[in-house]
């Protein structure tokens, strides 16, 4: 998994952290902020651009360097310290890199990588956390700029940071389909920031942000309008994966720290590491952490290979954050009263880990996602919607096919109606650049967007780069705008095979 180069990188990073970070952690926790001049040092070392191209100042390394980076910053005895670089590199700036214009990359990404600017990700709002589609912050276009109104809360790096990748509604009338990502400079007129007091993560600044008629240049839009929700769904996987690394790595730190203490502390005439219940408790934790780490490594390898792993990332985030809770609680117990004192670092580790099961999608939301994929996806397959051998000849749509759900109040379009609706949408949309097939069991509609225009055919036998299995009923809802393609995917109503990135463009066709 790790090569010699990786190991050298880890050593260099560790030395750097021991020199620049460790001696100051207690002070930063006390002052509840970190000095701004620290971050350009990270930038100089290349630590903020591990997976970004050299063109923007990055070092274009493989993802395993990021694994090492996350592991080591998670072993600095402060979750508050860890989260700033994590947000900077894995939770905010990837949206600019993946979907932003060249202009935005030049202006913002280069400054993120150099450490001159600190970035935030602004999703959560006072009225909507888990329920992201329900955010209320509006960005209304007015000539060459947007006017932003609304507020964000719990924003990491928001108090002292420089800009926020904000999730806004450019089309408030729409649900998820009206969501866009917009870069807002935090020094702009009309932005106010409140620093929030919190249970843990003391070295990190967490803000409530208010936007009062903030003027943002139109070129600060990341990607296309209305695509924000999809960008987010992709980006959150990286956020959860890196969060998982922080989860098991902080556990490894805690176990080492605790074993050290147990070997030094004496009770009843022996060191406490001789007591069997304490030993067995540690053995259980050590085993769970090892299993968890190997699972995250497995996910990291899949991620590094370019796979889109929603289920695995959600599982890893769920399990590592819950494990950290257990590990910190039980390790603290081994410290007795000293565990409750700030003199030892267990107290901090204990309170810092508490955010793990809440931030970045709560444990309940992770279970929602997993349940949808594990339970509903399979049940959809079971319903016989998996395509059988496609026919090359166009066939008449059998009436019974389209009206299977007779007692369903929703009307279902006929195959021909669906075909013509897709033709209409495809003609209006930009060429897809890929081939995409909608499969309804026996029949299919194929969309070829490789040329200048999207060409629609039916019951095509050729393989598409991406195949979407869907019931006619659900596609009807999508075509009518009643069902959001991403929600349909998340709920297992559509099943995607092949190139996932093509399916991500569904929104632009359906929109």
């Amino acid at each position, binding site marked *: 998994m790790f090569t010699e180069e990786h190991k050298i990188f880890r050593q260099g990073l560790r030395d750097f952290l021991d020199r620049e970070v460790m001696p100051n952690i207690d002070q930063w926790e006390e002052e509840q902020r970190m000095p701004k001049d620290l971050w350009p040092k990270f930038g100089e070392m290349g630590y903020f651009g591990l997976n970004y191209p050299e063109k923007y100042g990055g070092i274009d390394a493989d993802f395993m360097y990021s694994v090492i980076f996350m592991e080591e910053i998670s072993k600095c005895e402060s979750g508050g310290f860890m989260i700033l670089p994590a947000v900077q590199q894995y939770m905010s700036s990837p949206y600019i890199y993946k979907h932003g214009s060249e202009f935005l990359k030049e202006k913002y990404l280069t400054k993120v990588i150099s450490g001159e600017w600190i970035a935030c990700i602004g999703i959560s709002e006072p009225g909507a956390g888990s329920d992201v589609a329900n955010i209320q912050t509006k960005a209304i276009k007015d000539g060459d700029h947007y006017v932003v109104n609304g507020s964000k809360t719990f924003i990491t790096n928001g108090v002292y940071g420089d800009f926020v990748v904000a999730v806004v509604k450019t089309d408030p009338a729409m649900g998820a389909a009206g969501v866009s990502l917009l870069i807002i400079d935090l020094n702009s007129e009309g932005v106010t920031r409140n620093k929030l007091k919190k249970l843990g993560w003391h070295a990190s600044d967490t803000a409530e942000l208010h936007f009062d008629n903030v003027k943002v240049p139109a070129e600060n839009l990341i990607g296309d309008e209305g695509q924000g929700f999809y960008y987010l769904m992709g980006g959150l996987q990286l956020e959860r994966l890196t969060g998982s690394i922080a989860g098991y790595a902080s556990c490894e730190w805690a176990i080492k720290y605790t*074993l050290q203490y*147990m*070997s030094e502390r004496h009770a009843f005439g022996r060191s406490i*590491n001789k007591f069997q219940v304490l*030993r*067995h408790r*540690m*053995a*259980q934790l*050590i*085993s*769970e952490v*090892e*299993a*968890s780490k*190997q*699972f995250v*490594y*497995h996910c990291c*390898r*899949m991620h590094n290979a370019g796979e889109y792993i929603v*289920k*695995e990332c*959600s*599982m*890893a985030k*769920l*399990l590592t954050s819950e494990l950290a809770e257990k590990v910190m609680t039980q390790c603290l117990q081994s410290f007795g009263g000293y565990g409750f004192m700030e003199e030892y670092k267990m107290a901090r580790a204990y309170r810092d880990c508490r955010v793990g099961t809440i931030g970045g999608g709560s444990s*309940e939301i*992770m*279970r*929602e*996602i*997993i*349940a949808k994929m*594990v*339970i*509903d996806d*399979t*049940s959809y397959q*079971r319903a016989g919607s998996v395509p059988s051998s496609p026919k090359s000849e166009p066939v008449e749509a059998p009436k019974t096919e389209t009206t299977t759900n007779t007692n369903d109040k929703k009307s279902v379009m006929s195959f021909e109606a669906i075909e013509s609706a897709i033709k209409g949408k495809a003609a209006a949309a930009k060429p897809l650049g890929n081939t995409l097939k909608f499969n309804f069991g026996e029949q299919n509609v194929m969309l070829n967007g490789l040329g200048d225009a999207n060409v629609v055919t039916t019951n095509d036998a050729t393989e598409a780069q991406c195949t979407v299995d869907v019931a006619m009923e659900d596609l009807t809802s999508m075509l009518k705008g009643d069902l959001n393609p991403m929600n349909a995917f998340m709920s297992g109503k559509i099943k995607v095979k092949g190139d996932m990135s093509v399916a991500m463009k569904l929104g632009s066709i359906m929109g």
Partner: protein
Amino acid sequence: MNYFTEEHNQFRNSLRDFLQKEVVPFVDEWEKVGNPPRSIWKKFGDMGYFGLRFSEKHGGLNLDFFYDVILLEELSKINSAGTSAAIGAHTYLSLSHLNNAGSEEQKEKYLKAGIAGDLFGSLAISEPFGGSDVASMRTTAVTDGSEWVINGSKTFITNGVLSDYLIISAKTEPELKQAGISLFVIDRDTAGLSATKLDKLGWRASDTAEMAFTDMRVPANALLGQENQGFYYIMQQFALERLVMAIGGVAGSEYALQYGLNYMREREAFGRPLTKFQELRHRVAQLAAEIEQQKQFVYYLCDRFTKGEYIVKEAAMAKLLATQLCDKTTFEVVQFLGGYGYMEDYQASRMWRDSRLGQIGGGTSEIMKEIIAKMAIDEIKYD
């Protein structure tokens, strides 16, 4: 990381067909009778399933360990852990020891026949007064001319009533404690050997025996490997045995959850299928996540095992976690089925009671934690 090639997948498919035809329709009967019939050994032998990892010289197939992983996974999905245990004890316990320490003569006689399914065996280590504490076993073997005379008893021995031969442990030099233990291969018809079948909570399709050795005389060449090396041989097999249990634990969990889910889709309450209740959904999600994690951990260790790496600590971790997970999953699946979960008409009740053995056999959970604690806290190395 994908550990399975196209050949592995084909093997899995044909194994599945075999099990569906030769095993699954009969397991209910075997659970009642208390053991699979003699004829099944030959069928497994003919298919080569007992010799996947053994050399061709003795009739094996010389395949990588992931073929065994597949065998163990599929055996966990026939819903009769007793049947799997009977098969597992033969190949992973008795044949492994023969292959590891047996003389060429012993291999010809027992390993070859064992792989072919003509003979089947068991491994008898545990005693009434020495289970977890293997070193305190009391069975002794003393030389008398060219023969060994063995006295003592064993208990909880899988295939202990019906097997054709047994690998047993006995103290050849009791004052040396564990360093005085040796292994022997004993034929079933040896005079002085008696075995009684034990009644038990689960694993009902396997016969578990208590046995007594009364002035049992065996020839000098019944000694397996070197004298006084028995404990060492037993330790050499630990990583394999624990991986076997871990693979079974994960696959058993996976099968149980799938079974539970299928039921939940069909069953309605308050006008909707059980799969629509959020509380149940989240418990399924939690289990699915834990199973996926554990599975990847076990695969990763199997891969290292295949490469000949030292994984004593990790194998103990995997055995500990996977058998705990299987208890948790099967307990939950009984709950998902409600009253039907408690009935023998459905498979859940058997899964649950069969799972219970996982944390006891092959080294208890407490013993796994002892090993892990010694290695991780005291930094002791075993090799």
